[in-house]
């Protein structure tokens, strides 16, 4: 009866043939590299940040490869509960496979439920895989290696995978979420963080910044990594109600504090007044600094000391939050609108 379920396909194996959502066999894509991304079926590729990444993947990969796509040409992941996932031995898991032109698995990575994929781990794997030097842009590397384009694409695909929500049981089922980091080091210590009212038990290297624990371990990716050196404010969170930079705060030192992230600012479906005002006043363009701007502004409006009575005082008080799109006038207008309300 063929390959037993749950026996994972290994690197170097000929990929099992199976039926794609479009109804075509996987083998019909032979002759070009293929990336297969398995993810939960609730994942929606049309969400803005996900579709942006997949559009980029499409561009990088050019006409030399294919994602499994639907009739609408939208990039789409494969349901991790599908038969195809079982054929690849990754049922219920987030997984990424890179197949070469002959349909041989050149690289794979699997993220088990409740586990994290560390971006560093993926990059290390990809670097090891990328054995041949680049001879020319878009040129196939020597035998066994991957072309630069394929390498870039695989890197981007791995990055995309990091954004996928966990497969299997939903994290929100439990108020206490256990997250074990992949690639455990012997120096990890237990860390309990209280974030948006929920307690999270983690095993972390003491070197992990609060920002990275939020994003990499807890998938609270609303908090952004800009400079990672305390110069831009994109990573602003609240510690006991006061604004703070999560990139300059070790996670292990944040224990016992009430941590609020941008995900915890709204009350259910009701946006925080600052969030609402940013929408009303078009207080962003690219949006990358926006969570940090909003968190800084929200804390400021509760701050009994910092003077904010004029636009100049607001600009001084918000000077730790940079905006490369220079949406500053609208940011100030949004905050002043909340003050007037």
């Amino acid at each position: 009866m063929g390959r037993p379920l749950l026996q994972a396909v290994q690197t170097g194996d000929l990929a099992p043939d199976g039926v794609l959502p479009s109804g075509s066999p996987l083998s019909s894509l032979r002759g070009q590299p293929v990336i297969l991304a398995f993810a939960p079926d609730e994942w929606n590729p049309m969400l803005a940040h996900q579709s942006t990444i997949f559009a980029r993947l499409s561009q990088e990969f050019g006409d030399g490869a294919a994602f499994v796509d639907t009739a609408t040409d939208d990039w789409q992941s494969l349901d991790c509960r599908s038969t195809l996932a079982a054929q690849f031995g990754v049922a219920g898991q987030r997984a990424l496979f890179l197949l070469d032109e002959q349909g041989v698995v050149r690289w794979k990575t699997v993220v088990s439920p409740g586990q994290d994929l560390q971006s560093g781990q993926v990059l290390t794997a990809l670097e090891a895989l990328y054995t041949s030097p680049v001879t020319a842009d878009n040129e196939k590397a020597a035998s066994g290696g991957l072309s630069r384009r394929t390498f870039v694409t695989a890197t981007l695909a791995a990055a995309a995978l990091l954004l996928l929500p966990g497969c299997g049981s939903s994290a929100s089922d439990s108020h206490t979420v256990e997250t074990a980091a992949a690639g455990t080091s012997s120096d990890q210590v237990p860390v309990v963080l209280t974030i948006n009212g929920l307690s999270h038990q983690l095993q972390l290297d003491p070197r992990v910044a609060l920002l990275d624990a939020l994003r990499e371990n807890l998938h609270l990716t609303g908090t952004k990594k800009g400079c990672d050196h305390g110069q831009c404010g994109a990573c602003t969170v609240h510690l006991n109600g006061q604004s703070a930079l999560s990139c300059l705060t070790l996670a292990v030192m944040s224990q016992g504090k009430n941590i609020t992230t941008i995900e915890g600012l709204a009350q259910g479906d009701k946006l925080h007044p600052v969030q609402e005002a940013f929408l009303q006043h078009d207080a962003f363009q690219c949006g990358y600094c926006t969570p940090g701007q909003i968190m800084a502004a929200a804390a400021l409006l509760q701050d009994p000391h910092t003077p904010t009575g004029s636009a100049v005082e607001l600009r001084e008080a918000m000077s730790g939050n940079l905006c490369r799109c220079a949406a500053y006038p609208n940011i100030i207008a949004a905050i002043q609108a909340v003050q007037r309300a």
Partner: protein
Amino acid sequence: MHPFQYQRAESTDQAVAAVAQNPGATFIAGGTSHVDLLKEGVHRPTLLVDVSALPLQQITPLAGGLRIGAGVSNTAAAYHPTIQQQYTAVSEALLAGASVQIRNVASMAGNPLQRTRCPYFRDPTQACNKREPGSGCAALNGYNHVHALFGASTACIATHPSDVAVALAALDAQVQTSGPTGPRTIVFPELHRLPGTTPHLDTVLAHGELITSLDLPAFAGRSHYLKVRERASYAYALVSCAVALEMNGQTIRRVRVALGGVAHKPWRLHKMEAMLAGQVPTEKLFRTAADAAFADAKPLAHNAYKIPMGRNLLVRALLETSGLRPLAGPAGTAFAASVGGMAGQLAGPR
């Protein structure tokens, strides 16, 4: 980042013991500067002893003065009513430094212990005697525009970055410490060292010696901090100045002045202080004093601009403190302390 173990200190004594007995150990409090140095690979401790939860978080009256616990946040100190009114330069220096987010977390003892912002110190691929003794100084013949005018050596031309340290030096704050050999008091201007041949040592603190408080002695005069930056806000000082002035009728009874951004430590101008005592404040007097103060400045290839900038800043800070010229913003705020940028804009329509 180099691997390290982490330990939360239960008491001051335990923190001191933990660091003193381990040459690779170091204290961490707010971490706003320290974590960045860990990320850059400039600091490579094997053990971090977290003192941020120790009961050193109070500001209390002290024999006419004020005791600021080492763990008090920069924000809490800056907006403390007594500090804002009686030690105005301290509030101004704090609020003209960093950002709200950083001030909320940074500690009062940690702020003066910041390492230099010399870019060569922060780049482990560059020679730096402060980071790696004996490796040389890449700044000496490099782009040394933010470097020292006074007290430098051929081993190191870095400047000290803290704003509040300059104000504390002008106010003769006292540093209380707890160390492996017991407690001691260090007068603030003596906390930091000049580089000499040992630029890796920023202060006179021993390994394992922990600052427990900063004590401000009684002060009945006016104090003021003024700072020039490359942008309107959220930047380190190119040059800064703290003045603590006590008048006797129309004449200066005592004035203490410290410069920031020009030396390896807050740079007290003792000769100028002596010269101004007993004088009636005028712009001419201050101009003459400032010229004398910078007469022995030793500029490098790219920082000579700091001499006229520093002279003018010094004159302006003295004029503003003595009331001969209005402050650019409300006393005790970042607006009073900032030259250019947002300073003065408060006067316009709101």
